[in-house]
């Protein structure tokens, strides 16, 4: 009896240490040795204040361990690092906890995934959220699952929507207070998009915000007829949160059918928008639509980057978005007021963004039966890949594509809506002989001016992280993991990791030693300075 009491005491102490309180998430910046949320902190900056690895010594980065998942498919996961454990996911519903010091697995969760999923772009997943003694996974079969952080055992598992109707999840959830927030995918399958909140304790759904207004709600008139019922507008990338304003910022995706707009005339709210929500109730505070009535697949699913800066001498709370439509936008995040937008890549569809925040659309940019070439292409000027902001350089770093595509659609060929089947309407593809190219671009968020760029050889597919060591981490399309000088864009170090790099890096520390980790191929690689 005495023994078991003693055991209980010891275990109890350890459990208390492993708790992720909501306050820790709010104050993540005070624990730079951890990586507590998808973007590292609620502000979406994906910045590490650790500076042990810096511009002077980055050439001494050395591999410390590799963890191979053995799972096929694109690994887009951002690991979490909490109190000596790394948590990550792999495609098709795998999740792992690793001993942070050694990379040795502590547990593995594997979901029995149905075979008849409707997923446009691979069996991907981008990671987990953590709060309390759990981590949270949103699955391709449209469930939200709470896993015990110590064992990986299922604490609860709830169906959010019917995967057979085209709904799925690919994003890392975001934990705020006692809730876990997820945004749905399925914009190519005729879904009606939503953002959901679940009670972390019980799995009970606390609220749902439909990204398309329903019957009788303001905004439904921006959809022709009943097209709102299947208008897409998913929300498949993790948002950001301002605890002071108690506001959640989340991007929404393309209206559907993607390239066929004749049956959904109108602006199609709230597709291709940034929505600001009350995380307690899911009520909309404001919205800003980047691309009204989109016919080019320009999902506005980007991590919104929250920045505090003086504009015209006045301190402002800002949100910056490099949008898939090719423009970099700065908004006031208290009320969604549009401040300015500037192109950061080649743009042929709009002359500019007018003072009211709406694009001045150029002729010959709508898809036609024979095809029309528009820039940016369907992949966008950027895509879901995480941007980063360094408070040190006060620059925002983005993954930027230079690619135009041919867009085709024929008004006579209205696509049929069949639940769970593609609802696209047509296609886009690169014109022959176009080299796929991309770059990391450093943008001054106060002006939208590009300060420097680092060109990848061909189109990369990875996000960006910056650090107080004066570094920006990126990857090219051939699997090179690359460190750049955050001030100049000069490449300082790189290592081929032998697999596609489709995620963004993180940084953390173990026993006072800084690490950088990145997913490449089917593995996680952890680097530190050689001793």
């Amino acid at each position: 009896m005495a023994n078991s009491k003693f055991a209980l005491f010891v275990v109890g102490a350890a459990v208390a240490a492993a708790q992720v309180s909501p306050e820790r998430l709010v104050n993540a910046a005070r624990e730079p040795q951890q990586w507590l949320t998808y973007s590292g902190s609620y502000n979406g900056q994906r910045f590490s204040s650790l500076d042990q690895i810096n511009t002077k010594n980055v050439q001494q980065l050395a591999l410390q361990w590799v963890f191979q998942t053995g799972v096929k498919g694109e690994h887009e996961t951002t690991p979490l690092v909490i109190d000596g454990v790394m948590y990550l996911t792999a495609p098709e519903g795998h999740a792992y906890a690793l001993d942070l010091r050694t990379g040795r697995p502590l547990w593995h969760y594997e979901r029995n995934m149905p075979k008849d999923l409707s997923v446009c772009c691979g069996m991907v997943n981008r990671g987990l959220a953590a709060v309390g003694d759990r981590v949270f996974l949103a699955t391709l079969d449209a469930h939200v699952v709470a896993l015990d952080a110590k064992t990986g055992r299922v604490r609860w598992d709830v169906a959010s929507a019917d995967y057979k109707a085209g709904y799925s999840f690919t994003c890392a959830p975001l934990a705020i207070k006692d809730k876990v927030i997820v945004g749905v995918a399925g914009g190519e399958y005729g879904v009606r998009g939503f953002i959901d909140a679940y009670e972390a304790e019980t799995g009970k759904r606390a609220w749902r915000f439909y990204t398309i207004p329903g019957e009788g709600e303001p905004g439904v008139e921006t959809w022709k007829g009943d097209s709102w019922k299947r208008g897409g507008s998913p929300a498949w990338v993790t948002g950001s949160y301002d605890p002071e304003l108690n506001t959640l910022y989340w991007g929404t995706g393309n209206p559907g059918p993607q390239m066929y707009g004749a049956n959904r005339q109108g602006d199609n709210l709230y597709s291709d928008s940034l929505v600001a929500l009350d995380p307690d109730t899911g009520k909309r505070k404001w919205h800003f639509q980047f691309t009204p009535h989109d016919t080019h697949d320009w999902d506005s699913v980007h991590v919104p980057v929250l920045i505090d800066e003086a504009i015209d001498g006045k301190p402002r709370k800002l949100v910056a978005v490099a949008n898939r439509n090719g423009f970099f936008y700065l908004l006031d995040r208290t009320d969604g007021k549009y401040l300015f937008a500037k192109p950061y890549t080649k743009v042929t569809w709009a002359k500019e963004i007018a003072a009211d925040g709406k694009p001045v659309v150029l002729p010959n940019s709508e898809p036609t039966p024979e095809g029309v070439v528009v820039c940016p292409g369907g992949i966008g000027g950027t895509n879901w890949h995480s941007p980063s902001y360094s408070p040190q350089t006060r620059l925002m770093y983005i993954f930027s594509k230079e690619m135009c595509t041919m867009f085709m659609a024929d008004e006579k060929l209205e696509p049929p809506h069949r639940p769970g089947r593609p609802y696209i309407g047509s296609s886009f593809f690169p014109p022959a002989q176009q080299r796929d190219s991309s770059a990391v671009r450093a943008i001054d968020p106060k002006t939208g001016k590009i300060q420097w760029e680092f060109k990848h050889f061909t189109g990369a597919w990875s996000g960006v992280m910056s650090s107080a060591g004066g570094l920006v981490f990126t990857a090219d399309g051939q699997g090179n993991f690359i460190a750049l000088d955050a001030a100049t864009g000069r490449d300082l170090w790189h290592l081929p990791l032998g697999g596609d790099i489709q995620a963004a890096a993180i940084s953390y520390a173990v026993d006072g030693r800084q690490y950088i980790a990145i997913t490449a191929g089917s593995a996680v690689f952890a680097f530190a300075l050689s001793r």
Partner: protein
Amino acid sequence: MLRRMLLFGMITSGIAGAIWGQPSADAVKQGAVLFRQECVFCHGVNARGGVRGPDLTTGAWAHGGSDAELARTITDGVPGTAMPPNRLTEADVSQVIAYLRTQQQRAAPAAAGDAHRGESLFFGSARCSGCHMVNGRGGRVGPELSTVGSSRPRGYLVESIREPNRQLTESPASGIIYDTVIAVTRDGKTVTGVAMNEDTFTVQIMDLTERIHSLDKKSLKTVRHESRSLMPSYSADLLNESDLGDVVAYLQSLRAATPAVEKGATHGEQ
């Protein structure tokens, strides 16, 4: 009601054309929608052929032209070519086939050309095999052509011989375009060839003597791509119309084996 029965027939059989005769106008229209969504990237507008896939309007089907054979080609793809397996339902496939049937042009007169003579030219006086390999014979610098007849329409082949710079082939291994890469080393040596691979920091070039160079970009004075082929343009002076017809007939005879039904492969996703 008849229409509903027809559709039902297609959904259940997947070979509606063969069983029910003419497919419905709806099926053709849905097939056109699906074609634009799934196929147009390679097979071009109205199925007239593109950079990656053959013209599907000629009535000549490399892997069988019955509904069942077309359904198999669409569903399972053609291994060894750019044609991937497709995740479509049987009903979708039958609609695509119904649409393709409406796109058939009147049979063009059989292209004149002696494939046997074309083969002799290819390995002989036309000197194609100096750079191109067919079934293990020939050079290494240019694209392999062992199955080119399955993947390229006749017009594309003619253009590639007469004006090779117009549309450069993509290497299936690396996705790299067969353009001309020219690297100049610090000591002024020039390496010209095709890139076997390349990333942000390095390039691997095969030169015209088939020597492979591994180069670090930072150690080079310059490295540039020119949007032209290393292949000479075969004007009528180099290859007259009759010889061209024979070479093209030979190339068109180079076909991928019709696949045995193979399950379990998945569609490559972006």
